[in-house]
């Protein structure tokens, strides 16, 4: 273990600046992050992830946000274990009828101000599962949604970009409790 730790002391970090396609936009968002987030939220957003019936594809990419390349915590974004600790609910999947109540109750357990981000095509409108007897539809059919992130699944870059945009947005339009 010593060897591994030592090697990593002398190696440059893997963490990437910002994803290529939106470098300018992200840089802009990242710069504004410090000012904006500190004013409102003590420079951090706590995220509670809810799988309302996804295929697990979105979860894999949300997990990837925590790896060394994306290192989501450097932006003050972190995943928390309880909706009681959360500012943001990151919801994936078409909302299944069997998950509807759990989603509502998790939303109600989250203190205001709060934001809901619907992740993936299914969360937008039910995706390819829309119309099934077992599916309610997109997340907005059950709880109010502030931001939709498209993709099947959305790439970590898309997720990161969206979450940074949310911080920007959150300063302009505080959702009432």
């Amino acid at each position: 273990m010593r060897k591994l730790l030592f090697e990593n002391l002398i190696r440059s970090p893997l963490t990437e600046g910002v994803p290529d396609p939106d470098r300018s936009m992200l840089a802009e968002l990242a710069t504004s992050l410090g000012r904006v987030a500190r004013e409102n939220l003590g420079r951090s957003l706590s995220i509670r992830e809810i799988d309302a019936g996804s295929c697990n594809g979105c979860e894999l990419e949300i997990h990837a946000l925590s790896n060394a390349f994306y290192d989501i915590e450097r932006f003050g974004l972190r995943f928390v274990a309880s909706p009681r600790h959360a500012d943001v609910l990151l919801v994936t999947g078409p909302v299944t009828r069997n998950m509807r109540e759990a989603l509502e109750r998790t939303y109600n357990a989250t203190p205001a101000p709060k934001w809901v981000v619907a992740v993936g095509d299914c969360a937008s409108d039910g995706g390819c599962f829309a119309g099934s007897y077992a599916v309610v539809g997109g997340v907005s059919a059950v709880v109010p949604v502030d931001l939709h992130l498209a993709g099947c699944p959305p790439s970590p870059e898309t997720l990161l970009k969206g979450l940074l945009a949310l911080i920007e947005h959150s300063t302009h339009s505080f959702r009432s409790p």
Partner: protein
Amino acid sequence: MPSLIKALAGTALPHAHHPWPRRIVDVETWSALGGQLAEGRWTLAGLWGDAGAVHMALYDIGRDETDRSEMAVATLPCPTGQFPSIARHHAPAHRLERTISDLFGLEPVSAPDNRPWLDHGRWCVRHPLGTPTESSDQGSPYAFLTAEGEGLHQIAVGPVHAGIIEPGHFRFTANGETVVRLEERFGYAHKGVESLMAGASFERAAHFAARISGDSTVAYSISYSRAVEAALGIEVPVRAHWLRALMAELERIANHLGDIGSVCNDAAFALMHAHTGVLREHVLRQSNNCFGHRLMMDKVVPGGVTADLDRSGEDGVRALLPMIRKAFSQLVELYDETSSLQDRTVGTGTLSHTLALQYGCGGYVGRASGRSFDARRNLAYPPYDALRFDVPLFNEGDVNARVWVRIREVEQSLGLIDQIMAEMPPGEISVAVAQAKETREGMALVEGFRGDILCWLRLDPTGIIERCHLRDPSWFQWPVLEAAIEGNIVADFPLCNKSFNCSYSGHDL
């Protein structure tokens, strides 16, 4: 395969069913098969409903490692809406029968457990795949099994968990820290996929097959595509087989890397998690570079594959292999030499060999408990019949053994990719899929990272799916997690659960 077919002894079908036989059996034979399953003569590969009938896939695991398995399907028509319960003889059939009852309204007679399984009373409809009737959407209470004794308390976990995980409910009964009973309740991720597939063209249904369980999208697509191709008698180009295998092994490596790290993370050893996370990201990026999607979704379709490996992809894969080998061997050494980590994984969550055999546990769950089965070897499909690889086997059955199976499988998959890169033939990557102009049925068993994925389907003469059933390996792994956790402490559940890493969505469908 004289023995299994002889045991079925039923009548043949009016239409083609490939590549393994399906026989229509009578009630006596059906019940007898249940008894033979209980004796361990066959392994249950699947049990599913259809319009007015139930099907059961069985295989013979083979006498030794070099022996090939035999597989067949038995069908029992249910004109009265009832069938003799298999679960009465053979416990692994429990949840499958409860599902048949929920979805089709067919009743397993004398079943020991007649509680609903996927139906939580919230669909506004009962028996959605059988004769649907309207119902209320209020939800119905669920009677958890009891455990009685002094000082016992219950802990309810889920369906919304603390981590970034799929939805499911775990009901623990504990005595202090020790788990006395764990009962799982699933169905939260039930999306009604099989009802959406029915009536869809086989091209459209491929889209659903790729989204049964996102982590196994490649394996599911291969299983589905092979079933369609078996039904229609399609021969895909050789290169397509090899490209499928390349994707399947990349998927296996990515998932195993993620799992090894996550198990260590749940044992509070974040260093491993950080390093395996980096390697996993490299694999996903290379997959994206090669095939245009990080998880390689929708790249395998009936008839072949939709993306070929170009020069940049070839170079990328060739560069990826030594990089992973070098970094991974250091991590394996780290895992092996960190006693605080071993302290958590060795002897934790032990699954007995007997249970692994009885349930026919596929993947690392079975192979960590001495059950030597791998669909790539036992029911070999191309190109694995032309590739050299070992199926790692451990006997301890604990969390540590499940980690080691994954470690060895990563190494085997790297070796397989070496061979694929060296020997992959040039040529076409797909072939047009023509309709058969008659009813056809096909099935496939494909080894995903988690275990064997069964696909069975019936196509009508115009290529529309009449019925498609996909059975996730988790069906035969989730139940034994309840047994493996018994006597362990509650705090070790995340570790045990991660070492199984069963699918919720794949199970709930």
